[in-house]
């Protein structure tokens, strides 16, 4: 039993890792895009874009990686999920296209700059919203046999709210990223918005959790019907603790600024890691509820797994290249460490 499940389980975990990396990394740069309309001046917008322009491409690659791992390791799940989530995927792609090209065109434009600002903000928001929507649709269950049904079938209050919640979560990540990478007024604004977003995100997490537990009996049983229930309670408790620390750190950043005190770097970068931890905990909670399904209640990872020949073929690639990718990605972030300097020229 265990041997048979070994490889599929490995790819299931890898898929989870890819999704998590994507959500954390593209989360903060999509978040910067969502926050964009709340910053006003051209200089602020320049700064916001500059802060992520060297990393967005690499961050988005995790989305492609997640897609192809699903395709290569779980072809049946890739086929079922992609075709049943047709519209949100297409809209997400359109959003990603507009916000992606605006990085290139905005810095080269004059009269059309305002349009690239809009493309960046709306594209980022649309992509984030669609991702949340898809999450909601998957959790509530999609009918993969009924592709012919109405396009609006999956649009329930629950999935729409998930869309908003993911937008808010990404915006929170964006705020904590800006708190780490910026100075002065932008940092202040980011910390202030971050506190408000944090309250909203925590409320959403509570609401989505309760909603799911109320409507999905099997998930409820998993959380409360087993001997592990007590251990599982560590997840929400840790989340509350993280949120508490995060709220305090963001407050400190603001007070330090007001007092013109020496900047203590710890408080400037820690919010980002705390926000990332919040995402990790939320993701863990989701996996607890949905394991071992790729398409909840319909298709588990071992049902959808590709033949061993395919899983084995990818294995050396994953074992060699994923650590390498992590190493040079980290090195890339290291090269651009510290604050984003507005005088630094691009290419």
């Amino acid at each position: 039993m265990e041997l048979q499940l070994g490889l599929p389980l490995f790819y299931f975990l890898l898929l989870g890792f890819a999704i998590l990396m994507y959500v954390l990394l593209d989360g903060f740069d999509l978040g910067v895009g969502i926050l964009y309309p709340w910053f006003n001046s051209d200089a602020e917008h320049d700064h916001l874009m500059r802060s992520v322009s060297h990393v967005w491409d690499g961050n988005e690659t995790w989305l492609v990686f997640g897609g192809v791992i699903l395709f290569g390791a779980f072809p049946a799940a890739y086929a079922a999920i992609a075709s049943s989530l047709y519209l949100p995927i297409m809209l997400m792609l359109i959003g990603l296209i507009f916000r992606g090209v605006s990085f290139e065109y905005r810095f080269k434009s004059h009269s059309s700059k305002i349009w690239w600002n809009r493309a960046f903000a709306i594209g980022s928001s649309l992509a984030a919203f669609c991702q949340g929507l898809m999450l909601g649709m998957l959790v509530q269950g999609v009918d993969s046999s009924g592709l012919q049904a109405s396009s609006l079938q999956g649009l329930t209050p629950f999935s729409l709210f998930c869309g908003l919640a993911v937008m808010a979560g990404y915006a929170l990540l964006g705020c904590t990223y800006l708190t780490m990478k910026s100075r002065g007024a932008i940092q202040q604004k980011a910390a202030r918005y971050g506190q408000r977003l944090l309250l909203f995100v925590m409320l959403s997490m509570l609401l989505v959790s309760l909603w799911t537990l109320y409507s999905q009996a099997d998930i409820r049983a998993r959380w409360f019907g087993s001997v592990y229930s007590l251990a599982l309670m560590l997840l929400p408790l840790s989340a509350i603790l993280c949120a508490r620390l995060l709220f305090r750190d963001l407050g400190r950043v603001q007070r330090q600024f007001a007092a013109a005190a020496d900047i203590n770097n710890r408080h400037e970068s820690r919010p980002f890691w705390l926000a990332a931890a919040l995402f990790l905990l939320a993701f863990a909670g989701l996996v607890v509820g949905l394991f071992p399904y790729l398409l909840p209640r319909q298709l588990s990872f071992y049902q959808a797994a590709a033949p061993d020949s395919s899983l084995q073929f990818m294995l050396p690639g994953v074992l060699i290249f994923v650590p390498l990718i992590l190493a040079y990605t980290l090195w890339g972030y290291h090269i651009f460490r510290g604050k984003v300097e507005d005088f630094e020229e691009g290419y």
Partner: protein
Amino acid sequence: MELDAALLSRLQFAFTVSFHIIFPSITIGLATLIAIWEGLWLKTANPVYLQLAKFWIKPFAITFGMGVVSGIVLSYEFGTNFSEFSRITGAVLGPLMAYEVLTAFFLEAGFLGIMLFGWQRVGPKLHFFATVVVAIGTWISAFWIIAANSWMHTPSGHSIVDGVFQVDSWWQVIFNPSMPYRFSHMLLAAFITATFVVLATSAWQLLHSEHKTMARKGLSMTLWLALILTPLQAFVGDLHGLNVKQHQPVKLAAMEGIWPEREAGAPLLLFAIPDKAVEKNHFEIAIPKLASLILTHDPDGELMGLKAVPANERPNVAVVFFSFRVMVGIGLLMIAVALLGAYLRWRGSLYHSRWFLTACSYLAPSGIIAVLAGWYVVEVGRQPWLVQGLVRTIDVVSPLPAERVLFSLTLFVMTYSLLFGVYLYFMRKLIKKGPPSAGQLEQQLIGVKASGYAVALAKQLKPAQEQH
């Protein structure tokens, strides 16, 4: 008329993949050229090479960006629009694409940030290294995606269990019979595409801008490249054609416009209008026996024609036939330009022949048109099969309602049309603006340790502290 979801899905895929291929075709070659210029600058310290690199890195960046965003679409479109195809071939094609992401996409994205934005953060040598890695990343990416595509033309190394493909030999899947030819043909095509974009721009700059030194260098280098690459491409293309004859004879028959079941001493058709209703050509202009000579190396050699298979196993002959002529025509034009350029260089009048430079300046899109035409030959020529001889396209389309596909297709057509206009506008703008002058380049900060960096940092921090 009832809307046909399958047709719409196919149209959407054709449209989005055609749009996408334009950009990697340019960036594969351009990344390589930029790496060469940067290397030459490091080696010779001649600022004209840095000028070339710095000038072309901007068009490169917007082209690369367009390639990235249009490429992500494709990685999901297999599943959204061809779900049954994804389900049955995922175990073969998915791992190849996973390797593409693992060995190329992350590499390109990771080092692109340093290549574009790292001029001040890393030293010149490390920057050069980043550029080389990006260039190599584009080649690796081409390798995997061509392997996957070639397998759909000449599938091998697999078996079919319960209607699902699984792999017996990865070596045979990757290096399937058409892969080496297709890969060399495509990589050369990409190099040539970039070469002609730079060639045309340099010719234009020689005529209309004051950056003559850089333009001369650009023109000279690309003409040498064209002189080597275009005849080589004709040779590789011929080999690829022989490979098609062996493995996809119906496609070859469509390319050559051959209808009879078998035809000995087939002529080379310069022009004709294939008519599938009566199964013959109209208005033929032909060179007798040449097609047989080229493809069998015997003027009376026998070739298979379209009528050897039932009508429902033939591709759209007209599309394949004309696309092939467009591609070959452009290829011959490119060879002529390269030879003419070499002749003018030998005569010593290359940089003053206004007529030649004017002609060259119109050739910027020539490579792209040839690449698109070539892909239409390849992909339309495989129809009605998606995996040659095994999977029919029509059988594996997602069972989506037609309106949904129409909606997304409309969105893509609008988005891509808009963005293509924008892309051309900015390319034109960047080319008109020209490179930073040699003087400016010397003043530009390179490396965090450059003295200018500290000065600029101090300047920036000052107003920030005054706010307190």
